[in-house]
């Protein structure tokens, strides 16, 4: 990788950013508040742009600094990352050596980014970040943006775990019973699903699905019995928008462990939406495996895994803000 300079991120500021900044500036009654409104708005747009370049989906519409009320009272520049929390985007003037973080934003933020402007205010450079606020932070003490993606990633991991309900008391699919022919609610054979959901006709032509059975990577010589079941899962904000089919194949091995293969197919389209995430978690929420779709994928799958009677795990499917968890016990 090239090492031109310490990692910062320079953003040309868009028309929209400047128009919005002017708009907020014009609403303020004092020169000082007007200046802050302008710079804070630009800083938020700069960070929003940076995050979108990296593939995140910040929600500008939920910033307090753009609600036309907050800026009259507070020197804030907040930007929400849904499911994670708010980042504060602080302007830094050219030649400044210190990042100032006003007291009104010391709470309710997952981190603070320093955004330095050029004199012309046409460009902004994100210099770095700190997770915890101080009133004044020397710029040299900022953490490098090189570690920012990992920082957000770690935050996301902990946030997800906190949102999981305890295993006890949630609906649990008993996989051990599948081989005895017991049907779990919501799960069916591929054939049955296709009969009841003719709109999922695309599934018939997907690779790996033949005669309603998953072409398995599991070692068939080793198995006493196997079965495949599927379930439709809705991952869109609107019903039917992003329906996928979760497919689980089980094979009972000679040593009585159950080998498991998990795949997700799109239910109504040829390809999965991009950035669909499939994870396998332990009972306590540790991420054991995860895969992502890219946008041209017919399916995604986890590496096969196995367990014994009584072992528990969870599968999580996430797309944008929607996250669905299924609990299993062998």
């Amino acid at each position, binding site marked *: *990788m*090239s090492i*031109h*300079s310490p*990692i*910062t*991120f*320079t*953003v*040309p*500021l*868009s*028309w929209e950013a400047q128009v919005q900044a*002017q708009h907020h*500036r*014009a*609403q303020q*009654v*004092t*020169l000082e508040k*007007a*200046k802050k409104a*302008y*710079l804070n708005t630009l800083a938020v747009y700069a960070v929003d*742009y940076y995050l*979108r*370049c*990296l*593939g*995140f989906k910040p929600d500008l519409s939920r910033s307090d600094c753009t609600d036309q*009320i*907050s800026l*009259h*009272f*507070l020197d804030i520049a907040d930007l929400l990352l849904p499911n994670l929390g708010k980042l504060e985007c602080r302007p830094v*003037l*050219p030649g400044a050596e210190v990042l100032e973080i*006003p*007291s*009104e934003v*010391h*709470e*309710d933020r997952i981190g603070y980014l320093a955004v330095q*402007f050029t*004199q*012309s*205010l*046409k460009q902004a450079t994100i210099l770095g970040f700190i997770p915890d606020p101080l009133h004044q932070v020397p710029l040299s003490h900022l953490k490098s*943006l*090189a570690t*920012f*993606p*990992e920082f957000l*990633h770690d935050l996301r991991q902990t946030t997800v775990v906190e949102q999981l309900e305890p295993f006890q008391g949630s609906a649990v699919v008993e996989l051990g019973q599948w081989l005895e022919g017991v049907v779990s609610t919501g799960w069916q054979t591929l054939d049955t699903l296709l009969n009841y959901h003719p709109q999922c006709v695309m599934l018939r032509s997907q690779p790996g699905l033949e005669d309603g059975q998953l072409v398995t990577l599991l070692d068939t010589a080793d198995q006493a019995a196997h079965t495949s079941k599927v379930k439709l899962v809705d991952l869109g904000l609107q019903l039917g928008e992003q329906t996928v089919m979760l497919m689980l194949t089980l094979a009972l091995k000679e040593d009585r462990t159950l080998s498991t293969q998990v795949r997700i197919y799109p239910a109504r389209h040829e390809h999965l939406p991009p*950035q669909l995430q499939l994870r396998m978690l332990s009972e306590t929420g540790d991420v054991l495996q*995860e895969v*992502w*779709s890219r*946008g*041209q994928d017919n399916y995604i799958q986890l590496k096969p895994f196995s367990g014994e009677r009584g072992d528990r795990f969870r599968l999580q499917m996430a797309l944008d803000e929607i996250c669905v968890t299924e609990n299993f016990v062998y």
Partner: protein
Amino acid sequence: MNQAHTEDETLQQLAIQAQKSPPQSPERHQCLQQLVSDILHSGKLGHPAIGNYPREVYEELYNEALQRTLIKVCTKIDQYNCAHPVMAWVNHSLKYTFIDVEQSRYRHGMTYIAGSMKNQILGCSLDDLDHPPPTPNRDDQSDADRLRQFLVEDPEGCLRKVYVRNRPEITFQRVAIAIYVEDQSWTQLSESLDISLPTLHSFFNRNLQKLKPYFKKYILP
């Protein structure tokens, strides 16, 4: 080896590495971050139609086109074909994005990017911020009055009903007026009211969120 060739190889490596990393992974984010930085520092970005506009107008159009192009590069990195040099791909996108930007300039009637008078360029510089906006908007003036009036009158009494626990004299209304109408600083206010700054902020922020619908009802057109 040719310098330009080596630099583009580096860009290619970054692009390929980004493609190989799962979307949303820290590895991909880091690659994209470095890739954008390197593209901007490459000195190889094209300048479509540079002769067609006065300098300041061109800068504005170009800035906008560049901004849109870079985000496309990032969000569509999976579509990059490594048989072509990265800069060729970027400049190709930039050329067509520039055309879109030229068209939207007219379509959205952004007539204040006239370029004939300095003050009519979109956006302002740091120096401009030290002076009041050139043409004060009459609507904005009345918005300011409306907010002041709302805070003072508190038509439904909601602002004065809310106060800091055990300090009934510190109502939300009093704080809002001090900050907005009297232009006090938070520090000044916390000292004069003899209340800690974090407590004051926490009280105000929490209640502002709850009172927003009330505000919007009376002050937004």
